[in-house]
């Protein structure tokens, strides 16, 4: 197993290398003046100072050379400095990634709590009114633009309920003057999470409930389910033990794919709710031509994507006794 993972990681390296080239190229060709971004907004710099800065940041070199330098620095752990936040990029990602994570993780947990039992019920009662209802409901979840659902929630709930925060992660007053206790801080964050989590959980619920339903429908028609019934097992045991354990295989595979993405931001949604996560930082970075930050965020997301694929294969081989991976 370990051998397999190592092998997969090694074969991912060339792919990742090309991805970094693409990303670097795209970021470098974003419009706007990079030197000004380095010097800071509103700085009136003479041509001499600008030239010095250009040399200092290596911007005078040809693009391939800049890339090699950037890659070299990145590999040694130096991700550069964010020009907008005036902090090392590593530090920025390190702190914002957790904001993204708690939001996504909360949404995933809530989504699963509802999606699994509902998906199973749908499969058991396939074709019933209840099944169709949840099918349409989850299609809504897949089809609604997340930011629009967010806007609607803010408009109809946030603006009408006094205590419901509609943006950010913490109350400005409380955050500035200090929380009286850790519990107050947690409570404040939870309060701010309600609306964005609802939006994210809806979409995630939709994806997973459909997945659970479809794989359960497939499993329920299998011969071994008939065998389980013929043994005299209670219908509940047949469904939740014999059928669900089989349906779990594709579900865990999907989950494996999903887990790394918990760290990469829901870009547009975070912007709508002004949630200080990776997605929002990335959009701000793009808007303000913060190339070091944008590069790092994009590469980070790409790595998570590759890890997701690997993890889903690993999970698959862990839960399905029929699959054996060898190096």
């Amino acid at each position: 197993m370990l051998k397999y993972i190592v092998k997969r990681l090694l074969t991912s390296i060339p792919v990742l290398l090309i991805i970094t080239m693409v990303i670097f190229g795209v970021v470098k060709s974003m419009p706007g003046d990079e030197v000004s971004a380095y010097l800071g907004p509103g700085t009136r710099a003479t041509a001499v100072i600008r030239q010095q800065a250009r040399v200092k940041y290596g911007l005078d070199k040809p693009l391939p050379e800049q890339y090699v330098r950037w890659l070299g620095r990145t590999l040694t752990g130096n991700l550069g400095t964010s020009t907008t936040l005036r902090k090392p990029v590593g530090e920025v990602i390190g702190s914002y990634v957790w904001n993204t994570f708690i939001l996504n993780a909360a949404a995933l947990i809530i989504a699963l709590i509802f999606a699994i039992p509902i998906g199973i019920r749908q499969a058991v009662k396939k074709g019933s009114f209840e099944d169709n209802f949840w099918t349409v409901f989850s299609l809504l979840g897949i089809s609604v633009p997340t930011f629009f659902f967010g806007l609607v929630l803010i408009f109809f709930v946030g603006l009408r309920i006094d205590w419901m925060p509609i943006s950010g992660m913490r109350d400005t007053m409380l955050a500035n003057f200090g929380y009286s206790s850790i519990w107050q801080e947690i409570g404040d964050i939870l309060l701010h999470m309600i609306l964005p989590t609802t939006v994210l959980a809806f979409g995630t619920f939709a994806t997973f409930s459909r997945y659970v339903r479809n794989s359960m429908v497939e499993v329920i028609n299998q011969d071994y389910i008939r065998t389980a019934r013929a043994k005299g097992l209670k219908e509940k045991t047949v469904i939740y033990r014999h059928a669900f354990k089989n349906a779990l295989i594709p579900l865990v595979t999907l989950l494996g794919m999903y887990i790394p993405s918990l760290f990469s931001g829901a870009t547009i949604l975070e912007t709508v709710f002004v949630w200080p996560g990776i997605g929002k930082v990335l959009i701000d970075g793009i808007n303000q031509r913060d190339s070091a930050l944008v590069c790092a965020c994009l590469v980070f997301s790409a790595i998570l994507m590759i890890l997701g694929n690997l993890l889903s294969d690993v999970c698959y081989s862990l839960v399905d006794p029929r699959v054996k991976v060898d190096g």
Partner: protein
Amino acid sequence: MSEEIKNTAEPKANNKILEVDNLRVYFHTKKGDSKAVDGNHFDMYENQTLAIVGESGCGKSVTAMSILGLVSEPGEIMPGSKILYTGNGKNVDLAKASDAEIQDIRGNEISMIFQEPMTSLNPVFTVGEQIMENIRIHEDISDEEAKARTIKLLGQVGISRPDEVFNNYPFQMSGGMNQRVMIAMALSCSPKLLIADEPTTALDVTIQAQILMLMNQLKNELGTSIMLITHDLGVVAQVADWVNVMYAGKVVETADVQTLFKNPKHPYTIGLMSSMPSLATEGSRLNVIEGTVPNPVYLPKGCYFADRCKHCMQKCLESQPPVVEFENGHKAACFLYEEAEQKGE
């Protein structure tokens, strides 16, 4: 109400364990009710092997499934059907029993093995777990005892190194091995009745013989009755005591196995016999029964076999054939023997 064949042959001294009376199973489809089983009557006795023979779609599997209450939507066991289980001093009508009652009997007093051993075992549990589960739900014994018994059962069904096989997953074994596991599972609670639905069809010929011998041997050891569902007359000849021949949801002929093979009466049975390849008919062309089984949604008014029958008469198209009884409980539903019977009386 037409007459229907009732199997009344009674091997002396043995108790009746199952009485199926007027069993009708309809599948409600958009085009109308599909009459998969339409008036089935038969009895089963202790330590008896009853074979139910017929082409695919004749209702033999549905009959088996309805005994265990495994007929699912859109199928329905029609009101008026009776499946009386009288084994172990019980008296339960399985056609009307509650879920809990049936679940208590399934796998315990009546168990079943299926055609496809490879897909009939759950792929994500070891075979040991699956057999143990059957024991644990019906008997109040500890894990260790259940495990010991499982390993013993695996040995009994002819699996070498049963303690290793205990931890195998079904996909790691051949079809024949898996069918042995299925048999071990089905026999784990010493059932009174074992229903075997085409147990050897998916297996190689050499393995088929082994499995049949195993079933026969276990029947004799444990005194279990076997209901063998098959389309293969060769299999019937090897193991059955009594045979019901089904056609389009009805039993058309019933007899003990010797009588049936020596002296088949119903044209359908005769057709089946002569379409069976054997050494005796080597060189000559196999007979085939031309035509197809009628659509169970649009069954004809007369005999269902009429349009494929060489001896079809006008009255065969107009009404259902009478049941004619011969010696030793041998019966056939056919107009051919009507006159003979009347003359005899």
